[in-house]
């Protein structure tokens, strides 16, 4: 089962990468009100159900993929 994890800098946390990206986009002439840079992890998960896959990936996020002090995560399971 294909599962995608989106890891984002938590709201309210300074994101210097995002700020640099925003500044560069503005220099290119784009009108950008904000930019935040996170991380995307595509996973192939062995699980009997979508529900189970999601539960597994949630554990992966808590134990490794995201640092709860500074990052939030979102899990998307691709439709079978």
């Amino acid at each position, binding site marked *: 089962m294909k599962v995608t994890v989106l890891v984002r800098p938590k709201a309210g*946390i*300074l994101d*210097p*990468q995002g700020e*640099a990206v925003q500044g560069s986009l503005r220099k290119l002439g784009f009108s950008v009100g904000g930019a935040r840079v996170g991380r995307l992890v595509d996973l192939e998960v062995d699980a009997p159900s979508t529900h189970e896959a999601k539960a597994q990936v949630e554990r992966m996020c808590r134990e*490794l*993929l995201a*640092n709860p*002090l*500074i990052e939030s995560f979102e899990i998307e399971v691709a439709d079978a």
Partner: protein
Amino acid sequence: MSVRPRIAVLVFPGSNDDRDAAWALGALGADPQLVWHAESELPRDTEAIVLPGGFSYGDYLRCGAIARFAPILDAVREFSAAGGPVLGICNGFQILCEAGLLPGVLRRNRDLEFICRDVPLRVERTDTLFTARCEAGQELTIPVKHGEGSWYADEELYEELETSGQLVLRYAEDCNGSVGDVAGVCNEARNVFGLMPHPEHAVDPLLGPGDGALLLAALVDAARERTFAAA
């Protein structure tokens, strides 16, 4: 009788300050032993552990995030839980934070630059074995060299650490955007300490400031005391 206490210096794939750390500890009277990350046990009679700087496991995912699964880390946990002194320098600090042995996390420097220079530091706490040779408020000059050294804790955690006296070392001038200009923190039991500056690069006055020796010699003192206590 002079005793050279054994100090384990861990080596991860990507560590690059392990030999400098071992050299500095040797110069300060210890018997440093390099220990490969895949080992599951520390050398016999290990009295302190140093996690050196570098880029363990290529800094993949987040700095230190993968190293915490190294087999030797179980031995580090056991050693620190029993009160053994553990020092993390730079990447070693990042590993200890990711492993949950130290509070907070190290993030990308605020200005996104790799910072490599001598920085002035202020010793906030002398009630740790690592700062036992320093005076409260003493200023030390020790080099930093990192891209991800901006220490972060949310307000609640920061207050808690301040109250419990775990914020041991601060930058005496703006450096990398660390919350509260924190450069080094210890655990609640005060036997685990991590810092971004590199004391092992500031030991021989021939190469610049020698203030790093104050921190490392204190670690050697503590290790030596344990050797005597065990005898």
